[in-house]
């Protein structure tokens, strides 16, 4: 009871941010809602040859062609079945849209910025350190706060072309 009260006091002092939380393998992650353009079901994906393995291909998003990245493949997780829960999160990456395939999108949560703790030095997550912006430790769950822009590093964005 007291902790709950405390949290509320904290919240009022801190800016609230909204996260879209999604599941990957058995863990839960969150990205800033402002970066998420939309969440769609899996459409038919056109494979693009000679790209890194985690590029699933491209899709037609209402007349715009956008690349799709498999989060599982990006983080070297075992391939998952595409289920009715599978979603593509369309993210605005510095003006360019990109889609990320995740196991499921759960909800939009509001948290105070102070709740985000710096990521521990050694993380037991599949996610690489640099994309991890923080950890949100709530009583009933643990969320990894991702910085997706770091996911595709600057080099990679342009190096796609060079990879054969």
């Amino acid at each position, binding site marked *: 009871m007291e902790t709950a009260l405390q949290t509320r006091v904290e919240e009022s002092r801190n800016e609230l941010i909204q996260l879209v939380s999604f599941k990957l393998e058995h863990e839960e992650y969150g990205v800033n809602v402002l970066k998420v353009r939309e969440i769609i079901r899996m459409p*038919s994906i*056109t*494979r*693009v*040859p*000679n*790209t890194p393995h985690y*590029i699933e*291909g*491209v*899709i*037609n998003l209402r*007349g*715009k*062609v*956008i*690349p799709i990245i498999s989060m599982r493949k990006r983080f070297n997780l075992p391939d998952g079945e595409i289920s009715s829960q599978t979603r593509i999160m369309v993210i605005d990456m510095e003006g*360019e*849209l*990109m889609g990320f395939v995740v196991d499921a999108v759960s909800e939009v949560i509001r948290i105070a910025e102070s709740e985000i703790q710096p990521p521990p030095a050694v993380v037991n997550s599949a996610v690489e350190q640099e994309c991890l912006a923080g950890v949100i430790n709530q009583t009933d769950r643990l969320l990894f706060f991702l910085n997706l822009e770091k996911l*595709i590093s600057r080099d990679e*964005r*342009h190096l*796609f*072309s*060079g990879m*054969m």
Partner: protein
Amino acid sequence: MAIECEDQELLEGFLTETAELLEKLDDDLVALEKAPSDTELMNGIFRSIHTVKGASSFLGFELLVKVTHKTEDVLNRLRRGELEVTPEIMDVILEAVDLVKLLVSDIKGGDIVERELDETIGKLLPFLSDNAKEATVLKPTAPATPAAAPEGQVAEPLPQESAMQAPAEPSPAQETAPVKAATPPPRAQAAPPPAPRDDKKGDDLTDNSTVRVDVKRLDDLMNQVGELVLERNRMMQLNTDFHGGSDETSFGEEFGKLSKRISFVTSELQMQVLKMRMIPVEKVFKKFPRIVRNLARDLGKEVDLLVLGEETELDRSVVDEIGDPLIHLIRNALDHGLETPDERVAAGKPRKGNLILSAAHEGNQIVISIKDDGKGVDTEKVARKAREKGLITDEQLAAMGQREILDLIFLPGFSTKEKATDLSGRGVGMDVVRTNIKKLNGIIDIRSEPGQGSEFILKLPLTLAIIQSLLVEVEGETYSVPLAAVLETLRVEEQEFHTIGGQEVLKLRDSVLPLMRLQKIFNVQPSERSRTACYVVIVGVAEKRVGLVVSRLLGQQEVAIKSLGKYLANLPGIAGSTILGDGRVTLIIDPAGLLENSDGSGGGRLAA
């Protein structure tokens, strides 16, 4: 004096028509100068000016009638062979046409300004007297015109641009140096033409807020809209039936059919509208012959302008943006690139220089090139000037290759001229080029060969370009091959393939065609079903030919190129993507890229 015209529609019609006639007139007149015996062309010109005269007298634009009437008279004499086409006559006629343009733009602006017509008309008159041939020599006004007339017209755009840009940057624009020592424009420093005209106004007769569309395209569009209306009616009917209690299975079936048709019609519609945005680059190119002619006369140089690929279609927005940079590049080529006839002869080249302006689609880009056979860019001089002006440091220079040094000319404030002339030397032009091209996400490439000439290549993306393509299937995946590159297609049995030095080839008639299996290049999962027959699509890039092995040909389709975005740009062998009628994305093959890769360059297009 405001214009009072009862029939606004009539006036607008007159303006549109006249603007078009005048624009064409420029081009035709320059062409006529080159081919004076072309009676067809001569008559066409005569008709145009006659039409303008007729229409303006009908609408009561007295000033316009006066000028066109005299011009027509001179043209008539030329037509009847009483006069010969000389550069002097052309100068005067062009000047008259400019005056006509100015008057028309006045009318368009809604105000008739009293303008000084007598001077231009005075220049026309000598050619109307009986001893007109002598008049060109004897009358003092006539020889004076070549210098005066082009100056007012051509030099104008630069000052006005520099006026906009120069104050913004405290560039050392004034302290300029001659580029290639020997070419200060040998122009008579004639007094500025009396009554300096607002020539920019005259240039902008064609209005970009209105679009002219091919009637056929408009008809197609109307058809599509008609179909869409039909489908909508069908949909409403279906809805009524459904609520009236028709059974669900037949509704589902009907609805499925309907949605397919609607999706088809709308995507066609989208394509049609997209096409209307596309205009041939000719719109920009057609004003260049005139510009080149005047510049060349101004600079005392002889030049042949060759324009290629003017039918290449570009998105409106791109066409609107490339005009300025191209003018700068052309001016540059003439002023800095080409030598004077005497210099050329001394260098063992023909007196007449060549300037080639070309446009072409290449992958998902449009490539516009301006090539001259002048003396090329003197990189040493460029480097020295840049250092003198403090644009770069010695260390920077030391680390630079030829290519980087060439790029220095794009720096704002850079100029190799000691003194700014009307034509160039303010150090603004190339910066304008760079800024505009950057705005369009384009690339500029310079190739320069000392003594052989230089070439400026603009590569502009054309995200909206529409191309004809051949859809092919590679083991279940669909790809699209630009039809422009396809020479022929063959159905062959795989046992007809041969292997020479590890390279699969096909003996085709009397040649040996190297083969590329798209299935291997694109790492497509081979299907279980083995088939012995396949198709070979023979594509050509420059002088090279190669056969692409595919499983099936699906047909031909006009597709709009969509970029794959920044992250997937420059994939080797892939020019872009397109969305098919069913909404699926299909990749467009870039034959040039494929061929480059097959050369073992490894780095793909990046290496180019």
